[in-house]
């Protein structure tokens, strides 16, 4: 009886929390060509076109340039004079659509599977297109995301989705692109930061020894997985190893979470040994090993700029300066911003680096072109160039700045998406209650 009540409660909660607003529907495919004129176009690769135009047909960009737009028959023309056009922002390493309420509603949390080694677990199938959070992120210009599993040593594999879809199949932009590995850490300051009370007769492992042991285990696992990948028809199928095959044939990347410089070094050596295409995620101390990263072509996804330094002794602005340090070190770097709902702040996290050395266009590239390159989707998105998907939006002002960002119109694969969300609706509801004219 109790159980019934609980599940009934869960169901009711589910209805009120987990599903998107019924009145916000995914957009229809692009029917007519669109021409945007008079805009300041931020291409995403550093280039800015003043008084520019952009045209797109059936979801693909057909032209970008300065001055008057070419005549496109039967097109919807948007006059964007004085406005800014940007490539859609890309949020890698997110739990968007996997988590609805972080705490106290475990039923809405689907990002962390049990167990240590889950290369076979796929985030795509848990991606909830009806999350109420997605429209709030989308309306700040984030149009693509990489819902990513967490936890354990190997957390699972991720896909890239576009943020306007009926279901995860529709949403899939590029499937199963990466496997996610949490590199064992020996850094002090973690969980085992204060010396454990020694147990008499037991030899205490140092954090470094413990971490090394784990690294050895991972190495052994990868050796076996690599051997397995060479077998054309294994007598016993191992779905973990099946999932890992892509790492060895170049179809999947290995995203390695590592912050400590030493551990980044280990991770780079490791991936090189197995011929794996690796991405460092986090990389708080990546600025200390830029040569290594550059020489091995290993990019970094910075977790957040709006963070505190780890050490009291660090430059108080170190996290703000990290992108510039990687830029100067010749390393390819992207940015995620943390969490899911907080990723609507992704443009501001990028803008944060501008006061501390980056140019505005470099900051923009960080969350468009660079993220696309790192995710392996740069052939179709990340910049506003002919032939790519029309993933873009128009903002009244500077989209990386809170006093500028104001997304008026956004297109995903040419579809003019609905920018309404729960928050705008509640804003309107209560403005009406108080009789405010806003």
């Amino acid at each position: 009886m109790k159980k019934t009540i609980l599940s009934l409660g869960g169901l009711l909660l589910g209805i009120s929390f987990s599903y998107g607003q019924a009145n916000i529907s995914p957009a229809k495919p692009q029917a007519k060509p669109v021409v945007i004129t008079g805009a300041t176009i931020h291409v995403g690769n550093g280039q800015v076109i003043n008084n520019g135009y952009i045209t797109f047909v059936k979801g693909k960009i057909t032209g970008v340039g300065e001055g008057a737009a070419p005549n496109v028959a039967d097109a919807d023309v948007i006059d964007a004079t004085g406005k800014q056009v940007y490539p859609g922002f890309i949020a890698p390493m997110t739990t968007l659509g996997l988590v609805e309420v972080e705490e106290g509603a475990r039923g809405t949390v689907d990002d962390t599977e049990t167990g240590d080694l889950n290369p076979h677990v796929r985030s795509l199938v848990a991606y909830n297109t009806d999350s109420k959070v997605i429209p709030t992120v989308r309306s700040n210009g984030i149009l693509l995301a990489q819902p990513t599993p967490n936890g354990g040593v190997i957390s699972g594999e991720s896909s890239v989705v576009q943020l306007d879809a009926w279901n995860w199949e529709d949403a899939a932009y590029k499937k199963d692109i990466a496997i996610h590995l949490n590199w064992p850490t020996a850094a002090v300051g973690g969980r085992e930061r204060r010396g454990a009370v020694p147990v008499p007769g037991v030899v205490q492992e140092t954090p470094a020894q413990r971490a090394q042991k784990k690294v050895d285990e991972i190495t052994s696992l990868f050796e076996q997985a690599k051997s397995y990948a060479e077998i054309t028809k294994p007598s016993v199928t191992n779905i973990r190893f099946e999932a890992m095959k892509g790492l060895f044939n170049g179809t999947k990347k290995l995203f390695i979470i590592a912050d400590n410089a030493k551990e980044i070094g280990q991770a780079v050596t490791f991936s090189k040994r197995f011929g794996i295409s690796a991405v460092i995620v986090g990389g708080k101390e990546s600025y200390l090993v830029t040569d290594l990263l550059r020489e091995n072509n290993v990019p970094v996804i910075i977790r957040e700029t709006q963070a505190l330094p780890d050490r009291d002794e660090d430059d108080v602005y170190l996290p703000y300066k990290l992108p510039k340090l990687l830029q100067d070190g010749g390393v390819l770097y992207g940015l995620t911003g943390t969490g899911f709902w907080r990723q609507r702040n992704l443009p501001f996290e990028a803008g944060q680096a501008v006061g501390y050395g980056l140019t505005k266009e470099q900051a923009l590239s960080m969350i468009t072109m660079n993220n696309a390159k790192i995710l392996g989707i740069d052939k179709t998105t990340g910049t506003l160039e002919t032939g790519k998907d029309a993933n873009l939006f128009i903002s009244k002002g500077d989209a990386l700045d809170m006093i500028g960002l104001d997304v008026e119109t956004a297109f995903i694969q040419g579809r003019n998406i609905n920018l309404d969300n729960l928050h705008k609706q509640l804003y309107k509801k209560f403005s009406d209650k108080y009789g405010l004219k806003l």
Partner: protein
Amino acid sequence: MSLINKFRIKSIHMKKTILFCFLFFALKICDAQETFPVNGAWDIRPGQYAFTNGTIVSSADQTINGGTLLVKDRIIEAVGKDIPIPKGYTVVNLQGKFIYPGLIDAYSTYGMPEQPRQAFGAGGFGGRTIVPVSTKPGAYGWNESIKPEMNAKTVFHGDAVKSEDLKKNGFSTVQSLIHDGIARGTSVVVSLGDERDNLVMLNDQAAAHYSFNKGTAATNYPSSLMGSIALLRQTYYDAQWYKTQKGEYNISLDEFNRTQNLPQIFEVTDPQSILRADKIAKEFGRHYIYKTDGQEYQRIAAIKATGSEFIIPINFPEPYDVEDPMDARSIKYEQLKNWELAPTNPGALEKAGVKFAITSFGLTNARDFWTNIRSAITSGLSEKQALNSLTTIPAEMLGVADKVGTLTKGKLASFIITSGDLFKPDNIIYENWTEGRQYVVSKMNVADLRGNYLINGTGFANTSLIINGTPGAYEVSIKRSGVDSTRTRGTITRAGDRVSIYFDYKKNPEGIIRLSGYIASVSPVTLKGDAVFPDGSLSKWTATFTGAAPPSRSPQDSPKPNASVGPVIYPFTAFGNTEIPKSETVLLKNGTVWTNEKDGILKNTDVLIENGKIKAVGKNLSSAGAKVIDATGKHISAGIVDEHSHIAATGGINEGTQSVTSEVRIADVIDAEDINLYRQLAGGVTTSHILHGSANAIGGQTQLIKHRWGMLPEEIKFAGSDGFIKFALGENVKGSNNGAPANNAALRFPQTRMGVEEVYIDAFTRAKEYKAARAVKGSTTRRDLELDALVEILDNKRFITCHSYVQSEINMLMHVADSMGFRINTFTHILEGYKVADKMKAHNIAGSTFSDWWAYKSEVAEAIPYNGKLMHEVGLVTGFNSDDAEMARRLNQEAGKAVTYGHMSEEDALKLVTLNPAKMMHVDNRIGSIKPGKDADIVLWSADPLSVYAVAEKTFVDGVLYWDIEKDAEKQKALAADEGRIIQKMLEAKSKGAATQRPTATRRRLYECESVEEDNFVVADDYTEMERAKEAARQARDRNEQ
């Protein structure tokens, strides 16, 4: 052969293993313990000794060369020159040797039972056990951490093994205490003689002891440092009340009163902790002696100003392993600096004229005692002070100055015999006499075996023996030269004239070679004897002295050199100042000034700062002597005010063990050394409201501070501001996210929003009755600090800021306030404020919210970023707060989000984080806008302060430039250079053989509302264990749910 030697030989026979000739002298000389029966014949001896010809240092002020010390049984009969030696005295000729008073260790747990460690099941999350009141049987007080009824005298039991370490270092007397709890009861002073407990007691009620640490108490409260302080404060009031009442019998309070006339000793840690305790001392007219952690040099002026005495440790840190530069990064700057400066602490106290005793308490290795004393001496401590701190000062502190501390007629015969000056590195302590009982540390008048020897005998070709170390602790190595050259360490044991040595060459031959021999001649030393080889073959050997041995590389013999040391910085952490910055006259020229006044935003305008205040705002200002800063193209705003912050507090920000904890005060636990004070200056923050957490419905009292980086806790408080208190509603108060309860009956009330209302109703009902009862003339109603704070609220003298999320509970609290007759000043967080803004407006309640937070838990499912805009439009005083050390330094950007979401005017948006929170805190007459006469809390921004691109280049607080981006760059360079310098020094120390420690930097704990500190604070050592327990509980919970 003298009597003494007879005893020694007897002892040798008694002891099986006598490594370094530590001889026990367990025989009774003259016990006079009349109540005890004797098995066999009584053996009462006169115990009369005359120590002659020695240098008698009877006290730090008096040295008698060639003097005589007469001892009769336990007492010094005479001391001086030319004292006739009566018949019947055993004469000990101390020609060339020294006698000192036996040393006194002012702080120890010698002879105390081991304290049980706090059980873990009691704490942690998930399945928390509620222990609201004491589980101790008997008529004791409610809280187990207050145990003044504990008397060390009732549990003391001498420990021959532990006393040895102390006696070897020269101690003959110690204070011994029960090292557990906040009020720890009374201590004893005992002699270290290996005698019946009845005979060693010098003072059975030496002092009453206190600390901030609840220790093993099972009672949940207190879980935080501020809770500990509140409990102690309340105990003082309860004890006063107890004297006046007849209704309650309470042994704890009775004993608390009874022990108030004893010396009061308070164990604290760092200087801020000392100042915390000293505030309590001043509040209750107490005088504490502080047992510290030895970092007083960091705040020597403030320490001196306490007017107290101190007991200081000399457990100076070992150098860190710094070979790996990456690993060395995890060592904190203050750890590096403290390594360098800790040995200067005793000298710094001496120089400041502070009275202090030195204790060996806290040393991991007793052998470091003399090394560290010598290190302190090379770092500025005088030998005279050192001796006083180990003799007369502790004797006075502990009420035993009539018995020990000097070598004076009539005092106890507790003294040590040394080879020379006690403080010289090569000194040897030979004997430690405790109350007339001899303890031999290192045999006097025996051949010193140290030297290089050549060994002759079959199997010992080209072999030499090297003996070095000290006569009490020889070190031996064996060296074989030639084709088979090798060197190995051996072990030597000496018993009188017999020696035995063993060693292992590891190869040729492999296995242990054992030598047994005797001292065949003394000058020069020759050793002779038999050898047994690993294969069982035998041979004879002779070792002939060939010369002095090189000194061993033992670190304890080489005190750390006192080369140049770095300066003390304020605060003692990275980015501390060598000098505290001063207020200046500054003219900011030609900036865009966001006045927050009716003038609005003024372009091309100047601001003049003088004497910590804003002097003038206008065009073309000038001022002779002012430092001019060109603000062309830049923006000038009032300093950012954070209404909701948890930085700069230590020992936990939640006392969540009870639903009402209005007695706890953040003011008691301000940490002025938190780097986040500095980091937030770098984000333009000048004032922060430091709140209690949100774990309970009525939390603790809050504290408004200014970011005066480098000042003391009392100095960073916002003087004259109104008192506030934190209330909380919702999930945290209900404990919703604390994991699955193990047992419904054992949960803290409330668990629902229904229960939350009743907590308020109950608390304020009690407060009103209390107020009425106290108002009656001649009332004996017990003063209750918890209710005092609620009465202050009812009297409009303390103001509420209430953590709140959903509209139902917000509505509820407004109703409770109306019905109980109090006012709510601010709803903080208030994410659904937009739903009840009209009601808040009617109650004149301010709203301090997040700009855009939501979705992190169920109760924020309808939090919207337009909340601030809607509350502002309805007419509430609206602000944005941080509740987060990171967000706090970008509050200007958070204000900018009011432009993103809702298009608030920029002028109004900036007020969300400046003037409006100042209004909420009732300090808008002082701060929050740029207006002549207000405090010069000013930020110079590189761009529009609401923009993501704005950088705070300079931040003034009271006209003092505490943040300057250019000076910061210099500080960073200096910091790196100083770290490098100290690390070089550490490497040198290590290469000289010093023991090292692994870097185990701890990260500063960052608090937000929900931080529950309980276990970490209580037993910090058990942190790891606690984390594991938490993790295990979490996993168990996950399993259950699957």
